[in-house]
């Protein structure tokens, strides 16, 4: 079917063979790796959002000690390379978990790569999300919150009905950026030996010596992920901003 194309472009047939979805092609491995990457990125992003929400609320409403501890967390995590945090949290997390299990008289367990990856990247994402969400919550018009309070809303209702919906459009650009960081940071787990897209690619490239083919293919997969999610976030943002006036919204 594609024969005319193969005669037109020499080398294309071998490339297609290498990338084929069934062995001996490596396309299936690449796609499985991509799926694992997406899984970890989604988990880490979700965990980051939860941590970030509590972190932002703690920084804004917490006592002095909470605030100081939270700034230590955000400063350290944002200044130390992710790779080192991954190693520290991975080793320390496994150690602590096994010590706790031993204390309870259980057998030590091997931590699954996915869980460790999500936990580690989620901790990193949490620090960035704290700052993004804090900025967005601070930018919410104070009058809105006072109005909510005047209606007798409790703090939870106030957050759910007033603060959250009005801060979301302000936070979305930062959150979309964080999601892109999460998808790309999953590549770091290749270094601790977790089979996500980058490591699968390296194994495929190493065994076939077709470095350009596989690295470019993986690059295309990553690029597709980031471009598609950029579109999705743009769409969500447009949706949440639909009630707002044009570029001159809000106060001057």
């Amino acid at each position, binding site marked *: 079917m594609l024969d005319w194309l193969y005669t037109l472009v020499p080398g294309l047939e071998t490339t297609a063979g290498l990338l084929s979805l069934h062995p001996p092609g490596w396309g299936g491995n690449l796609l499985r790796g991509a799926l694992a990457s997406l899984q970890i990125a989604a988990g880490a992003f979700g965990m980051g959002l939860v941590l970030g929400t509590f972190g932002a609320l703690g920084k804004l409403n917490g006592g*002095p*000690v909470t605030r100081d501890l939270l700034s230590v967390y955000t400063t350290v995590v944002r200044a130390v390379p992710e790779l080192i945090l991954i190693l*520290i949290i991975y080793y320390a997390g496994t150690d602590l978990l096994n010590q706790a299990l031993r204390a309870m008289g259980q057998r030590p367990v091997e931590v699954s790569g996915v869980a460790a990856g999500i936990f580690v990247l989620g901790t990193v994402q949490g620090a960035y999300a704290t700052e993004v969400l804090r900025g967005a919550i601070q930018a919410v018009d104070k009058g809105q919150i006072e109005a909510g309070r005047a209606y007798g809303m409790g703090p939870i209702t106030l957050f759910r009905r007033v603060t959250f919906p009005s801060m979301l459009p302000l936070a979305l650009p930062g959150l979309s950026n964080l999601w892109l960081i999460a998808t790309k*940071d999953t590549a770091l787990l290749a270094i601790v030996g977790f089979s996500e897209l*980058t490591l699968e*690619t390296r194994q495929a490239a190493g065994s076939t010596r077709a470095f350009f083919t596989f*690295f470019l293919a993986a*690059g295309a997969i990553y690029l597709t992920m980031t471009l598609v999610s950029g579109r999705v976030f743009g769409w969500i943002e447009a949706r949440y901003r639909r009630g707002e006036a044009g570029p001159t919204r809000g106060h001057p």
Partner: protein
Amino acid sequence: MSAPTNIPPNAPVPAALPGNALRSLWREVMQPHRLVLIALALGIAVYAGMTMRWHWIPRYADLALQGFWRTLWLLALSCLLGFMLAVPLGLAQAAGPRFLAAPARAFCTVIRGTPLLLQLWLIYFGLGSLFPQFPWIRESELWPYLRQAWPYALLALTLSYAGYEGEVMRGAFRSVPHGQLEAGRAFGLSRFAILRRIWLPQALQRALPTLGGETVLQMKATPLVATITVIDIYAVASRVRQDTFIIYEPLLMLAVVYLMIAGLITLVFRLLERRYTRGMTA
């Protein structure tokens, strides 16, 4: 790995007198809860110093210093070269004709849309396996360098910084008010003089806070070069771990080293900001 690319409006830089700054720092620290926290942190540090294993430090000190130096110059050189590429990339996107703007934009999108580790491995393994096939490269003067790993690391880091900062500079060039450029034209300045005297300095002023954050991110990316056999400070720590089976101590030390470099970068950019915004009114 990019901070949000929006450029914050120029924050006024207070002309802080040293005495004033010290006094406000003193007041910041001298709060009861903070004193307790600092004492607690010091206690943990002393406890760690006493009970953890640090005997490997003298043996690896030389290697660590070399690695530290290599990390620093890889960072500095890649930021410098990357920024030199980022200015034309940003300019092409902000004001260039279409045939320049489109490739610049595509370059930034691809660099920002794929992980640096992948780019690094593509360049090192890809180019590294391609080059030896050409006899004229193997016979060239550059071959002794091309056989080492650091040129590939430098290239990958430079391209990455150029991609992210090209996007930052695009926003910065766009944010310079049009009237400024028109005023330059009214004075009869050539296009190049407008760029050099008006457009670039003002764009830089606006971009500096973002560039500082991006440079810290670039620093956080440097340990990746250890995966292509460049012996930076991270690689030295990994070697200590492999040789001695000591896990936490080298990693903690590494974290402290990177924290210090991050502090240094922040300080340098604060000084730069103060210097380049001195003509601005608050």
